[in-house]
C-alpha cells in the first residue's frame, strides 16, 4: 500500500534522509521510530507530498507521488506533528473545507462530519473557531480530517501527543479498526509503549538512515534484547547514556 524506494533528501551538503526503503502492506500498522532530528518528520513530509525528494520515489496505493500527486494524495490521510489549522474557521467549517478539497459528495460528507465530531467528542465546539481550541482538540480535529474521506492509507506524525488518556485510547482503537478493514497506517511515535502495543512492524531511523526494520520478534532475535526500548537504545546508540546517567547516580536502562 505504501512503497518507498531510495528516498533521499538533501539540503545543500546536509543529508536529512538517506536512501530509505520501506514497504507497508494492507492492514498493517507500521511504527516509525527514531531519536530527535533523525529524519522522521522529513521522511513523512516527503511521503505526503509537502517536500519533494532529492532522489527516490514514494508510491501510495499504486500511485506514484511524483507523477500522479493528486491521485496519490486522494488515497491518503495525513496528521502532522503540529496540528496547525485555520484559526478563523470553525471546526465544522474546516471539516467541510476538507470535504470540498477531497471532492467528496457534500451531502454524505456532512453526515460523516457530524459522526466524526461526535466520535471525537467535538460536537459542542463544532461551531467555535479553531483558534479557540486546545492542542488536544486541534489534534482530534486534524485526525477527524485525516479520516473524513475514508482513505486507504494513514500517515501520522506523533498522533497521540497532546491527547488526554481517553482520546489517546480512542485514537488507538480507531487505528486498529482502520487496519482491520484493510487500511495501512504509517505512524511515527516517540512513545515506545504505543509502538510495542500497536505496531505489527517497526522501523528505526537513526542519523538519516533506516537502521533497523522488522516485526518485534525479528528485532528481538536480531538484537538479543527483550523490550523495544532496549532494542531502540541499542540501535540508536542510546546505551551510551548509561555512562552519563551514572554521573548522577542513576542506573540507566
Amino acid at each position, binding site marked *: 500500500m505504501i512503497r518507498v524506494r531510495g528516498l533521499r533528501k538533501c539540503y545543500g551538503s546536509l543529508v536529512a534522509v538517506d536512501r530509505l526503503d520501506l514497504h507497508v502492506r494492507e492492514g498493517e500498522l507500521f511504527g516509525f521510530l527514531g531519536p530527535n532530528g533523525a529524519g522522521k518528520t522529513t521522511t513523512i513530509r516527503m511521503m*505526503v507530498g509537502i517536500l519533494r525528494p532529492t532522489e527516490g520515489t514514494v508510491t501510495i496505493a499504486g500511485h506514484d507521488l511524483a507523477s500522479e500527486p493528486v491521485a496519490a494524495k486522494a488515497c491518503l490521510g*495525513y496528521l502532522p506533528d503540529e496540528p*496547525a489549522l485555520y484559526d*478563523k*474557521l470553525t471546526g465544522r467549517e474546516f471539516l467541510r*473545507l476538507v470535504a470540498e478539497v477531497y471532492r467528496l459528495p457534500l*451531502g454524505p460528507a456532512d*453526515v460523516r462530519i457530524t459522526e466524526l465530531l461526535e466520535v471525537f467528542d467535538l460536537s459542542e465546539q463544532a461551531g467555535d473557531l479553531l483558534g479557540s481550541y486546545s492542542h488536544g482538540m486541534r489534534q482530534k480535529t486534524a485526525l477527524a480530517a485525516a479520516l473524513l474521506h475514508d482513505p486507504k492509507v494513514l500517515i501520522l506524525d506523533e498522533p497521540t501527543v497532546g491527547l488526554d488518556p481517553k482520546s489517546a485510547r480512542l485514537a488507538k482503537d480507531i487505528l486498529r479498526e482502520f487496519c482491520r478493514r484493510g487500511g495501512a497506517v504509517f505512524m511515527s511515535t516517540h512513545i515506545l509503549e504505543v509502538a510495542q502495543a500497536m505496531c505489527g512492524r517497526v522501523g528505526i531511523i537513526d542519523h538519516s538512515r533506516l537502521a533497523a526494520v522488522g516485526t518485534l520478534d525479528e528485532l528481538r532475535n536480531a538484537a538479543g534484547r527483550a523490550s523495544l526500548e532496549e532494542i531502540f537504545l541499542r540501535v540508536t546508540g542510546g546505551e551510551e547514556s548509561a555512562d552519563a546517567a551514572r554521573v548522577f547516580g542513576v542506573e540507566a536502562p
Partner: protein
Amino acid sequence: MTAVLRAKWRMLLSLGGKGRGLPGSASIGLALFGLALGVLVFFLANGFFVIVDRVAPGSAGGVLSAMLVLLALVLLASAATVAYNGFYASSDLTLLLSWPLSPRQVFGIKLVEVLAAEAGTFLVLGLPVLAAYGAAAGAPLWFFAVLPLVAVVFHFLPTGLALLLNLLAMRLIPAHRAREVGLALGAILGAVVYGAVQLAPAAMGTASVADLGLASSRLASPYLPTTWLADGVAGAAGGHLGAAAAGIGASALAGGLLLAAALALVPAVFASGWIGEPRRGRTRARAGHPASGRPARGRNGHPIAGLARKEVLTVVRDAAEWSQALYGLVFLAVLVLSNRLAAGDGGSAFRFGPVMVYFLASFLAVMGVGPALGVGAVAREGKARWFPLSAPLTRREWLGAKVAGGVFLSGPLAAIGALTVGLAVGHLPWHELIAVLAASVAAVPGGMAISVYVGAQNPVFDAPDPRRRVTTPAGMSHFLLQALYLGATSLLLSLALAAARWAAGGFGAWLGGAGAWVGPLVGPVEATAVVGVASWLVTRGCLSGATAATDRWE
C-alpha cells in the same frame, strides 16, 4: 448586588487617587472639566436659541427636537459601546457569574454601569442645552426643577435601545466574532461621519437659518419619542403643565418599554450561553443540514471553491486582515477623491474620461486591497500550509483559489469605485459607465493574480503582522507590476473604446433605427472583452510563475 455597585463606585472615585476610597486628583480634575464644559455648552446653546428665535420665530422648538435626536444618537452610540464592553468584553463578567447572583442581578449591575456612563455625557451636553432652551424661552422656575426628571426620562431611550441591540446581538453573534462585528460597525460609522464632514460644508455654505429650521423639522418626526420629549420641554418652558406632562410621560413610557423588553430578554440570553455563545450546545436544523437528519443531495465539493471560501472567511473574520485592506482603500480614496467630493460640484474643472475613471477605480481596488489580501495571501497559510500541500490538489489550484478569494472580496470594490468615480467625477453617459464598470471588474483577476504572484516569491510564513508577510523589495515590485498592468490595460481600453465609437457609427448606418440602441452597447462589450482577455492572460502567467515559486520554498 449593592455591595458590587458600592465597590465599583469606590473604584471609580479612587481613579488616579492613592488614598483608600477618597476622590483622586484625576477625578476632581475630570469633574471640574465637565463642569466648565457644561457651562460653555449652556452659554453657546443659549446664544444659539436666542438668535434662532429672533431670526425665525417659533422654530426653536423644532431645533430643540432635532438637537435631542442628535443627542440621543450620541448617547445611543456611547451606551451601545459601554454595554458592548460590559457584556462581551468585561473582565469582571466571569467573576460576577461565578458569584451567587441571579442573571437579572448581573444584568442590573451592567445596566447601572451603562446609566452611570451615560449620566456624565448627558450632564455635560444634554442638561445645559435644555436649560439654555428654557432660559432663552423665559421659562418659569419650575421648568428648571423638572429638568432632572427630563434627564432621567431621556436616559431611558438610548440606554434601553442600546441594551436591546446588545442583547439581540448576543443572541445572534458568537462572542468570538463580536469584535469583528463591532469593528465593522465602527468602520461604517466612521465612513458616514467622514462623508458628512466632507459633504456638509458644501451644503451648509449657502444654508439660511430658515433652511436650518426646515432641516430641523425633518429630523423632528412626530413618531419619535425625542420629539414628544421636546414637545414636553417646550410645554414646560411655556408654563403649560399639561403639555409638559403629556410629552414627558409619553417619552418615559416609550423608554420604559424598551428597557422592559431588554429585561425580558435577559433570561433567554443566559439560557443560551452568556456572552454570546448562542450556538454552543445546539446544532442548526435546516434543510440539508446533518442536524435535520436529511442528508443534502447534490454536488461534489470543489477544492477551488472551498479554498476560496476559506480565504474570504479568514479575511472577513480577522480584523488584522481586513483592517489593513480597509486602511489601504480609505487612504487611496481620500487621496484621490475627497478633495473633489468636498468641492461640491463634482470637479467640473477636471472631468475625467472613461479611461481615467477605469484607471482610478481599478487602482483603488487593486492597490487599495491587493497588498493586504493578495500579496499576503500565500503567507497567510502560516503553519497550516501542510494541509493544501498534502491535499489532493495541484499547487496551481491552491494558488488559483487564493486569486478567486481575493477577486470575490475586491471585485465589488472595483464596481463601487467605477460607479462612484464615473458618476461623481466623470459624469459619464450610461454606456460609458457600463463599459468602465465591466472593464474595472474584468481587470480585478489579473491584478489579484499579480499580488498573489509577488506574495508567492518569498513568503514569510511566520510573520504575525499581515504587513510583514513579504519583504520590502517585494512590496515595491508589486507596486511597479500593478502600475504596468493598469497602464497597459488602460491603453487597451482606450483603443477598444475608440474602435467601439467607430464601430457604433457603422452599426448605426447598418441597423437604421435599432442602431441607436445597439451602437452604444458595442463599447461595453469591447471594453470587457479586451480587458478581460488581458486579465486572463496575466492571471495564467502569474499563476504559472507563482506555482514555480513554490518549489523554492523548501
